[in-house]
């Protein structure tokens, strides 16, 4: 039933509105409407007395609808709705007419036009309000479990915080061990802690936590459901080893005859075909890489019919032969498991562009490597035990050049943004080189040093003053090999001179991007991402951890490149966000959702394909559309595509909008 006793409350907002808009005249004009029972103005509607005025008026005039004409609804819609609710009026019978940002301010040069526009906006709002339904928030049950995708430091932190709060948490990590990029690092700026010392306790906590269910070497296959009720399919990739039996003793590694580049060491070291990622891996389990294993390659060829097995020929099974617990079975044990969770934290991290992407900077030479690769060479647990050596010949470098901003801040050849962590890790690496090799000369070619964190600027000065790192302001344009050396062709933009230096190694601080495959994951989760693979937050400043999909949060470098401090903070933040949802037995959901009038719906499916959330299905028996309210986000894409009024968003019905449009469009 259309409302007949509407109250209109026009805010002066001090002089913000009243200085331009003739609020008295507006109240008078609007008061003439038959359906308006009461209209008034007040200096600050959002103040306590202002709200009281609305509450009292609702009671006094028995109002069945309220329009508050004030500022943007993003600011005080909730305030006003709560005020109405206190007076017993359904909050969905309150609408905001934004006459400050949309009338008073942009037209402060023309008070007459601003006043007329304010009247028009209020009239249109009343037209829309009149057919508003009273609504109650929807209640959605909650599964009190959480999923964390990504086992880097942000994910680890999130999982531990959740698990410690008593939430059963599922963690899915793509690699065979958790630890992420942080575990690859040598030491961390600006404190120079070693991640092997500070991260392993946390990793072990995850591995042994009674509330954490860990799936490593696993990927998300499919996500369905909605906030509080997600169903997640997880693919456990084939390891060819029974992890229940494997003790991680490492005997198999000693006998495997195959040698391939180690992913964990970013190609700086070789590993065997059956391998354990590193000595501190969590879980500490062996797995076989089927692309390099002699036996599995042979078996695959036989299966494909490419070769016929000869009798009595023993194919390599050296690892299995030495495995006492008989864990190695060579069977493809890929498996899909299903988990139900209430919230999801996405902490998929980052990767860096490869050196090969920069041929002009010598990326094709073995001794020109990315900073992340160099981390392995600087790491005490790395292939060179922390004393950097040239990958090409194992020589100790007498001179090293670092190049900042390789691909970063370079929209033409890389990414437009600053990769944020390179300045600091380059300075750290320069310091570590000087630590390990005091006689080695270090040249650091930078454009700007960005050291905006606690203790960061001081750290930079230490490198300059105490460690003797040579900083040269100017971007390197070319690196090439001459004899045994690499010639770095740079510039010093401060003295205005061309600078050339021959060094033994060049470290490129290449640009960071979102992890590989994150876009596919984002599509499964229905969350937005940008072209470089960073996941998008709802609001950069105020909602940095939220995604538009309720119950899905992002943390750490998945959102944008971050240092460890920020990643950990975000991990905790996302955990807290999840806990907020999971702490309630029921979730409340805005009821402004699509509804189907089954009398009118012809079941054509035009709405179904418009729904980005998969909320619409066609009932095969009744042949009409059905909306899953838990999935619906209320965008209205379905409604706009419906050629009739069969599916509409509650309180945004077509008749309501058209009536508002009628007011807005009229010439008089």
């Amino acid at each position, binding site marked *: 039933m259309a409302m007949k006793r509407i109250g209109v409350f026009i805010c002066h907002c001090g002089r913000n509105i009243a200085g331009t808009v003739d609020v008295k005249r507006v109240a008078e004009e609007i008061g003439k409407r038959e359906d308006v029972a009461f209209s008034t103005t007040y200096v600050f509607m959002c103040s306590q007395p202002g709200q009281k005025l609305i509450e009292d008026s609702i009671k006094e005039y028995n109002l069945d609808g309220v329009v508050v004409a004030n500022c943007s609804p993003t600011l005080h819609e909730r305030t006003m709705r709560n005020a109405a609710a206190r007076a017993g009026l359904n909050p969905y019978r309150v609408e905001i007419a934004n006459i400050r940002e949309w009338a008073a301010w942009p037209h402060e040069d023309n008070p007459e036009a601003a006043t007329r526009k304010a009247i028009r906006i209020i009239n249109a709002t009343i037209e829309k309000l009149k057919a508003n339904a009273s609504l109650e928030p929807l209640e959605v049950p909650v599964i009190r479990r959480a999923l964390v995708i990504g086992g880097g430091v942000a994910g680890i932190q999130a999982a531990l915080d959740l698990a410690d709060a008593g939430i059963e948490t599922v963690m899915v990590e793509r690699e065979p061990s958790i630890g992420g990029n942080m575990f690859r690092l040598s030491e961390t700026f600006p404190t120079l802690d070693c991640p092997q010392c500070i991260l392993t306790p946390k990793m072990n906590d995850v591995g042994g936590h009674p509330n954490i269910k860990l799936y490593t070497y696993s990927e998300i296959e499919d996500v369905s459901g909605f906030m509080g009720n997600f169903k997640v399919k997880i693919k456990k990739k084939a390891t060819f080893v029974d992890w229940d039996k494997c003790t991680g003793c490492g005997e198999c590694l000693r006998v495997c005859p195959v040698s391939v580049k180690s992913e964990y060491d970013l190609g700086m070291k070789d590993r065997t075909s059956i391998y354990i990622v590193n000595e501190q891996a969590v879980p500490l389990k062996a797995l076989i890489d089927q692309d390099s294993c002699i036996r599995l390659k042979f078996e695959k060829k036989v299966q494909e019919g490419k070769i016929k097995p000869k009798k009595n020929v023993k194919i390599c099974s050296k690892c299995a032969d030495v495995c006492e617990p008989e864990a190695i079975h060579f069977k493809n044990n890929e498996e899909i498991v299903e988990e139900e969770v209430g919230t999801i934290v996405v902490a998929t991290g980052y990767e860096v562009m490869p050196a090969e992407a920069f041929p002009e900077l010598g990326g094709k030479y073995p001794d020109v490597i990315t900073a992340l690769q160099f981390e392995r060479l600087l790491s005490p647990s790395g292939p060179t035990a922390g004393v950097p050596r040239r990958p090409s010949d194992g020589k100790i470098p007498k001179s090293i050049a670092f190049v900042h901003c390789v691909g970063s801040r370079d929209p033409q050849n890389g990414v437009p943004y600053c990769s944020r962590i390179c300045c600091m890790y380059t300075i750290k690496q320069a310091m570590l080189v000087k630590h390990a090799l005091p006689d080695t000369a270090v040249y650091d070619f930078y454009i700007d040093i960005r050291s905006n964190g606690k203790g960061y600027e001081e750290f930079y000065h230490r490198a300059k003053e105490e460690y003797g790192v040579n900083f040269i302001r100017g971007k390197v344009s070319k690196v090439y090999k001459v004899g045994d050396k690499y010639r770095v062709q740079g510039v010093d933009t401060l003295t205005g001179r061309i600078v050339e230096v021959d060094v033994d190694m060049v470290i490129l601080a290449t640009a960071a991007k979102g992890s590989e495959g994150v876009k596919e994951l984002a599509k499964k989760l229905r969350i937005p991402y940008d072209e470089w693979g960073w996941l998008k937050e709802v609001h950069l400043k105020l909602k940095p951890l939220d995604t538009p999909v309720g119950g899905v949060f992002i943390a750490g470098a998945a959102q944008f490149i971050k240092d460890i401090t920020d990643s950990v903070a975000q991990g905790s933040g996302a955990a807290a966000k999840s806990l907020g949802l999971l702490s309630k037995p029921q979730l409340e959901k805005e009821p402004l959702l699509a509804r189907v009038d089954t*009398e009118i719906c012809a079941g054509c499916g035009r709405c179904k394909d418009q729904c980005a959330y998969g909320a619409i299905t066609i009932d095969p028996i009744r042949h009409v559309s059905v909306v899953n309210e838990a999935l619906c986000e209320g965008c209205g894409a379905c409604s706009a595509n419906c050629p009739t009024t069969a599916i509409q968003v509650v309180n945004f019905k077509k008749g309501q909008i058209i009536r508002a449009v009628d007011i807005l469009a009229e010439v008089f």
Partner: protein
Amino acid sequence: MSNDMLKKFIVDAFEKGLIEAVMAPAATKDSYTYALITKKEDVDKITPIAPVMQWNGADMLRRITKLKKSERKLLAILRPCESRTYKELVKFNQINPENIIVLSYDCPGTIHARNFKYEPVEPENLVEEIKNGGKSEKIRDACKVCEYPAPIPGVGDIGLGLVNTDPVFFSLSDKGKEFLGAMGITEGERDADAWVEEHRKRREEWMEKERITGGRKGIEEFLSSCLNCHNCKDMCPICFCKECFFEDHNVFDYESNKFYNWADDKDGIRLPTDRSLFHIGRLIHMGTSCIGCGLCQQACPMDIPLYRLFGIVGNDLQKVFNYKPGVDDNLPPVMEFREDELHEFEGLLGGEE
């Protein structure tokens, strides 16, 4: 002749157990209507190739199968335009194609239902005309400028060739191939390209000439005799809504002051107010899927040549999306979207800034 042959084909199919029912036109006193038969003894009651198209046959199939798939094996004899409608309606979930075999033929076109009433034409006469590649002058506008007068591979299942040949059957789908095989019929060929091409040439010239231009004046004059009876919509097979948006009283009922305001502001208004908007709105809602059967025009009691409106604007819309309704396998433009497309519709002068 052709009809007799088709009837024989149908009897055969019944006997071989390949079908359990047939939907095809049947003569009435002054016209032809669609009929559903379930016994081979009833075959004589139908005229598979009829000179009038009172309804769009796909619309009839919609009625039969919308709620549940066809319970029996049904052979539907449809004109090429109807079989395109059939394919389009399957996409809109209005027809369940299971258990349906669609046969279409080189269509001689149909006579306007009202003209036929006063000046009947024997179906075989029309078929005779196309055998030599000609086409009667009496047939409807939409038929004269039909884009697809011949069966289209992938649309329907079985084709019957009549142009430049004695009747030949050929398959249009795997289902049709199987069917013909089971019937023991060898597939034939015939060359109708020139005949089709002629239609298309005529169509282009016609579209150029008959386009409604001039904006308000053009459309108002074109619709000046419109009764707002909505018959065009009722006959449109693509307008399958249960209740038309433009008939929703919640949306379109107004209090009197609104009417007076309009009259004040626009120096007088025509009543009813939604005459042109109804047609334009219908174009917006369904134009991308307009098959061009022309039944809107035939249904108009005031003889407004509506095919000039729906056929031509529909064609323009379909060009934008590079979509041929009832022919393409992909979804109708209103059911999908792409991330990188249509940039010419963005911004002030089209395209990026």
